């Protein structure tokens, strides 16, 4: 095992593997930063080149790209309030307000460092988990997936900010929008208006880009200033952001573990773990007042989780052939092209390749973070550019990204429609994260609810892992209220004691 671990490392630095990884990183850098245009599209373009490569070279080329998109995607989310990648949407919630307050440097520093920590933790957990991963993954069946979906629902309230009712309603709307398309059991058309293009539902990329980017662009236009509303002498302390990661190391570590866990579960992607870790960051904080307005902990949580999941998500993809996202689906195709049969055997027979993957994720993230740190001050200066100059470029990229979701004008229309919805929501003070969570969770919950009932009837509710997850969900839901009640009571008692003493 140790031998494979080391030979995996050596393979990464061999020629031409290392050069191919650098090429991948360069590609990942660009697509990560460009809003809307994500890693799936880039990987599809890179795919034909790998037919003649060796497995480790192909993996270096593709994984180099994929491993850095979550990191560089955070940059776009922070600077523009536009998701650079689907998995970096949650970084917007606190990262972008920080940029607006002139703290872009700090937010970027925190995102980059937490990404690096997350990637390293995720990659090494992947390495350590190899012996136990098969039974772990096999113990998750449809009822357990359903329970994870319900756990996500429990975070709706936490993600709602100050207006819980609006948040829960927005979450409900997200769940309803997730039902657009053919239902997964009977192929019945729902809200498709006769459009075949809507059969597979509302495209997540198109929806997210519209929901977040359009309101930001309109806001920028109306204000007529740059993104940063406050001018700060120095660009808001990159080092402070890096230090923040270690000040809140516990949070960074826990969110990395959340990302790793969700990555391991087959069919559940980083699109969910970023929100759960954001919710965890909010819940575990004693002072919640700054969240949504620019709390660095709101950047650290999702920053760590979306990167730690990259390594872990390789396990269900290669050992079980079940990809959790569009990108890992293409990666799976790449494995097939390389003649690598997905299956538990790959974990034993190609161990050195698996460890090469671990090292690739670590090395490419280190390189990316170093490069980013060198250019960070230049990057953060983008927030000082006059809006009028930024808007045309942003608009072009956003709608290009929306179109690229399914290569159709319908995707463009979806981007626009969600743009209008986002605009109204921002204007009326409705939180957008719960709607995104609803969109992500809808298909997961619906599919697995029906399958669970079909196979187990109501027995699915009594499965041990289901009970544990539901208990955690209940804790997420009710613990804050209980804590509040206890605090109130003790305050009341203290008040009475004080009154008695008087």
């Amino acid at each position, binding site marked *: 095992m140790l031998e494979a671990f080391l030979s995996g490392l050596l393979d990464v630095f061999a020629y031409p593997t290392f050069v191919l990884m650098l090429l991948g990183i360069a590609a990942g850098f660009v697509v990560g930063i460009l809003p809307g245009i994500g890693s*799936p599209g880039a*990987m*599809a373009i890179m*795919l*034909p080149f790998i*037919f003649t490569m060796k497995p480790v070279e192909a993996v270096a080329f593709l994984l180099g790209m994929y491993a850095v998109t979550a990191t560089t995607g955070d940059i776009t989310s922070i600077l523009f309030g536009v998701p650079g990648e689907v998995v970096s949407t949650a970084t917007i919630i606190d990262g972008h307000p920080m940029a607006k307050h002139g703290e872009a440097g700090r937010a970027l520093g925190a995102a980059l460092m937490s990404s690096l920590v997350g990637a390293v933790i995720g990659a090494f957990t992947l390495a350590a988990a190899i012996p136990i991963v098969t039974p772990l993954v*096999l*113990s*998750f*069946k*449809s009822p357990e997936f359903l329970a994870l979906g319900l756990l996500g629902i429990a975070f709706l309230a936490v993600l709602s900010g100050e207006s819980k009712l609006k948040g829960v309603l927005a979450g409900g709307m997200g769940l309803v929008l997730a039902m657009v398309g*053919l239902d*997964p*059991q*009977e*192929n019945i*058309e729902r809200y498709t208006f006769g459009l*075949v*293009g*809507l*059969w*597979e539902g509302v495209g997540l990329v198109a929806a997210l880009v519209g929901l977040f980017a359009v309101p930001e662009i309109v806001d920028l236009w109306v204000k007529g200033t740059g993104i940063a509303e406050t001018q700060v002498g120095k660009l808001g302390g990159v080092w402070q952001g890096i230090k923040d990661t270690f000040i809140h190391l516990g949070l960074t570590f826990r969110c990395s573990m959340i990302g790793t866990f969700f990555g391991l579960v*087959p*069919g559940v992607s980083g699109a969910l773990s970023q929100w759960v870790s954001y919710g965890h960051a909010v819940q575990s904080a004693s002072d919640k007042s700054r969240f949504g307005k620019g709390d660095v902990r709101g950047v650290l949580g999702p920053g760590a989780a979306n990167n730690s999941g990259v390594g872990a998500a390789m396990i269900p993809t290669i050992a*079980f*052939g*079940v*990809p959790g996202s*569009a990108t890992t*689906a*293409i*990666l*799976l*195709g790449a494995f*097939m*092209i*390389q*003649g690598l*049969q*997905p*299956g*538990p*055997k790959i974990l034993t027979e190609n161990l050195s390749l698996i460890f090469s993957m671990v090292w690739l994720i670590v090395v490419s993230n280190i390189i990316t973070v170093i490069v980013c740190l060198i250019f960070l001050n230049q990057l953060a200066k983008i927030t000082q550019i006059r809006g009028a100059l930024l808007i045309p470029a942003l608009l072009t990229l956003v709608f290009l990204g929306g179109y690229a979701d*399914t*290569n*159709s004008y319908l995707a463009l229309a979806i981007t626009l429609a969600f743009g209008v919805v986002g605009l109204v929501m921002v204007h009326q003070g409705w939180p957008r994260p719960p709607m995104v969570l609803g969109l992500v969770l809808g*298909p997961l919950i619906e*599919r697995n609810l*029906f*399958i669970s009932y*079909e*196979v187990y009837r109501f027995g699915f509710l009594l499965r041990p892992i289901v009970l544990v997850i539901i208990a955690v969900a209940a804790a997420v839901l009710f613990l804050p209220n209980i804590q509040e009640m206890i605090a109130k009571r003790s305050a009341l008692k203290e008040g009475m004691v004080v009154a008695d003493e008087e």
Partner: protein
Amino acid sequence: MTKKWWVLTVALAFFPVPASGASVEDFYKGKTIRIVVGFAPGGAIDTNARLLQKVLSKYIPGGPNIVVENKPGGGSMLAANTVYNAEPRDGTVIGTFVSELVLQQVLGAPGVRFDAAKYQWLSSTFDTAGMCAARIDSGVARIEDAIGDRGKELVVSSFGKGGPSHIPPAVFNVTLGTKFKVVTGYEGGAAQRLAVKNKEVHGFCTTVQSITSLAPDMFEGPTACCKVLIVTGSDVEDHPFLKGVPAAEKLVEKLRKGKDDLAMLRAIQAANRISLPMALGPEVPQDRLQALRRAFEKAFADPEVRKAAEKMKMDLSPKTGEEVSRVVQELLGTPKPVLARLKEVIQ
């Protein structure tokens, strides 16, 4: 030069040359052919298209540029509709989608906006068969164990009604009297197979091609968990996984079922025989159609394609455009009463 001459020269310069008049080579020179794939990147249809994309250009006169474009939607129905209705009919756009769409058309499924008879078929990649398999510990060792009143109910996972994971068990139930219980809703073939591995269900149905290339670990080696029970069609391919497995069309004769039952089984086998088809829209000039058909034949014989396919454990069994057309015609000619019954079962 007089003014008249000028006018004539300019008019001639802009006079459109009839497309079919130009040689195929002249037409394709400097042009780009788009292969419109009905799914997102990464799946079998996409990989197949990208594999052929690499070599196709050198076999087409004029050496056009070839690009793959993904247009996912409606289980590839969107791509089939778009290539048929909205793309240029000049031989620069090739569609590739699941062959089950032809069956959807004859069953009058909603959303179909093409006529498979008018599609100009170029090739198909696999000639395969549908099959159902069960876990070794499911209590069903042979298909006969799941037939009739005393047969055992066999729960199988499926990733979509009207597709290869749903049609065979549903049709076996009405023709052979099997007791498959199909649970739909799994997200794709991998999730479908995972449900078998983690014992959520007893078995699954798909194509023989899928299991030999995607899931051999379930049928051989230390992780083997399943056994193939039955395949569609009249013959059984010579493959280690299929030793002693009955063919549905033979079994239906043995069980002395009606002629309609046999016709139904034949109809569902047709789509498997032309798996991963490629097609041009209607009205593309014949010379270009023929040139592309020959180019596909050569592409499948190309050593690079053969080598890559071998690496992927894909046992290529390509059909020419003419052969695909014949299978499509056969399917379109299925008797009405058989189709009515099939529709009831599948939709």
